[in-house]
């Protein structure tokens, strides 16, 4: 039942918090530090959903999403963007890049979990 989630954020604090929230909700988190690292981690992985930050070194969230969407295996993998703004433009940009949805930072763990279920279903076997 547990969903495997790849979470990409350059902030250690946010990564720690994502890990905590996801683990407590029974997910299996994989973590990466930036877009490039995220792609490395993704290699050989088939996560049920991906969470990514936007502002990151080396490869930012938009570039990361684009690269993920470019891979056949992940064309339809749900991707949630972590953003500090809820500006519609940002959401539009995220979506334009191929994101499925967004989570506004600081995130409420319950909302994060709910959003994940909304895009990835209740579990891998659904």
């Amino acid at each position, binding site marked *: 039942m547990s969903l495997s989630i790849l979470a990409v954020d*350059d*902030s*250690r*604090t*946010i990564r*720690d*918090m994502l890990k*905590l929230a996801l683990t*407590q909700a029974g997910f299996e988190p994989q973590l990466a*530090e930036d877009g*490039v*690292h995220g792609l490395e981690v993704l290699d050989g992985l088939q996560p049920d959903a991906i969470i990514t930050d*936007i*502002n*990151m*070194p*080396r*490869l*930012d*969230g*938009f*570039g990361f999403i*684009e690269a993920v969407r470019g891979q056949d295996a992940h*064309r*339809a*993998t*749900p*991707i949630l963007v972590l953003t*500090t*703004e*809820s*500006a*519609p433009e*940002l959401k*539009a*940009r995220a*979506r*334009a*890049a*191929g*994101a*499925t*949805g*967004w989570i*506004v*930072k*600081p995130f*409420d*763990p*319950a*909302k994060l*979990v*709910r*959003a994940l*279920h*909304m*895009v*990835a*279903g*209740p579990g891998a076997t659904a």
Partner: protein
Amino acid sequence: MTSPDPMAEIRASFFIECDELLEALQDGLTQIDEGAADDETVNVCFRAVHSIKGGAGAFGLDDLVRFAHRYETVLDEVRGGRLALDHDAVLLFMRAADILFDIVRNCRDDVETDATAVEPTLRELESLTGGSEGEEEEEVADFQPMTLSLDLGLGAVDTGDTRYEIRFRPERELFASGNEPLFILRALGELGHTETECTLGAIPDLSKLEAEGALLSWKIILETNRARNEIEEVFEFVEGLCTLEIEELSGFSLPPLPDLPEISEVPGDSAESIESEDANSAPPISRLNLTLPGAQETQTPKTAPVSETPAPAHASAKSQTQRSSGSPSAPPATVRVDLERIERLVNLVGELVINQAMLSQSVAQAGIPANSPVAQDLEEFMQLTRDIQDSVMMIRAQPVKSLFQRMARIVRESSASLGKRVRLVTDGETTEVDKTVIERLADPLTHMIRNAVDHGLESAESRIEAGKSEEGCITLSAAHRSGRVVIEVSDDGGGIDREKVRAIAEEKGLVQAGQSLSESDTDALLFLPGFSTAKTVSNLSGRGVGMDVVRKSIQDLGGQVHITSTPGKGTSFSISLPLTLAVLDGMVVEAAGETLVVPLGSIVETLTARHENMRALGADSQVLQVRQSFVPLLDLGVELGFREPRSDYHGSVVLLITLEDGTRSALIVDRIHEQRQVVIKGLQESYGYVPGIAAATILGDGQVALILDPVDLLSSANGKTRYRSADLQIAG
């Protein structure tokens, strides 16, 4: 939401991360100032502040969020190329970074930040862009942690369930975005009782008839006591990717919703439409707790006073796709370890070193020959032990960079308050020193830097008069030199005014009038307690602490300070420190039957006392002639109070000790045993201060040996007792 432990841990780690981010910010700003910046530099700065803000938000650190947000907004202007930075602007950014640093500290220590104190800098910063205040505040409000607003829904909620008819027709882009109608319907099912009807084919009154691929649409009757905005939120991610109508059936009927605004940049390339299963086959079984906050302002519900997300004031072009041109290599992997664990490891390795020495001694005492396998294995064991020790010490080593950055701030602040223009040049920032040393160096170094800005550098007028550039320069450098770290603070000021120093010292009774002093002796007067050359005590350096305190702190670290000065050219303080506080290279000697360790760094050479090079000086003392100079002779056993002076020192072993300030002494010991590295064991904690003694160590035989503090021994314990009676004289 969780047990307090993991959050407290993350919080603590957040503040560590803040330090790293602040360092990156500081670095970036310095590079910008030096003109060495590229696009990525600004991005790094922006991200640093952005990440601080992100983490701060998670912990509800409002002061920090507020400041970081406004800082970040101005940085974003720089990033977007809409604001160019000159030197003054960079300085302003640095000042703001300093404030950010303080706010981080305050948050960490649960201290409130005085908003009025930081406001002027923020305003100054914002004035660079002409940004207006109110706008910012609004955006900050937008960023506040989400509060759930279940009770803000429809008035009808309390009276019972409301029936909604929801028409949902995904467009093909919905599938391309990775959304899945099935899951959305399932989430909807969580809100109440649903009856779902799946329709094939298009709904006639839609404007986007040309939409291809997505042929399914659903009509859902939802009976729920939840607020309308919760229903809307289920569709948050697909807003604009579907046509959606939410109609309240009870009471009056609602007109259909206007078409949703179109998202301008839907993905151009067409992913094939994903076939959806019949929605009815998706039983709403998930046990999710649906507590979605906020609502989509674009959905314009007609009746309900749905809590609206405040409209963000402006759309910053916050996020250009940037694939950095930076190096592709990943940052070196690191592990964070509790310092206490390292301390424990260091202690254990110390034990190992002692144990190994004891073992060696036992083997030697057992009469096992050196070429036996046991002895050879032991030799290898010793080598391994030493390697382990070195490696463990490396764990605690840290680059001095963070320390230097703090000093950069000191320069900025002190130069600003004195109205001097000062540039700080740093060198050797990557030099690694034991973390403990770095921490304990901060205070003395701060004082030296302030001193350099305040006293070292001349006023702008004097500088121009002297043909120098108006801007003073302070150089801070670090380097490893023969097993020690040397940190130098130099200024290009007027140099030490030796006449003035001398006059002050005489006036204060520190030297006698007419006493002849070399230049370096005169300079060393600065380190005497109670010395201050400033005519008026400025609020920067002259207060309370003098250079004597600086010297003492450095000596406590096993270091020495040395001063050099050239009139008109500047002054330089050189601090030489051991790489670690845990081990010391020492000479093991014997005095009055006791084994002692003399730090190797202070020993210049070893000599033998002879009648022909000893001279009486006064009643109780002697000097030793070392080439062309006379050096006071001290008997270590006597100085430590272990015995009375001997009648004759002819043939005694003498250690020639030189301190950084040039003071020399000839120290008589009874015997030199060996030269070796010893593990330092604090004596202060277990016993207290002992005059002339720096610490203790444990030798191979398990005995405690005291480690000498030559500086303290020579200055404080100058008992000047030499030999038994003044009448017994050395024979010519």
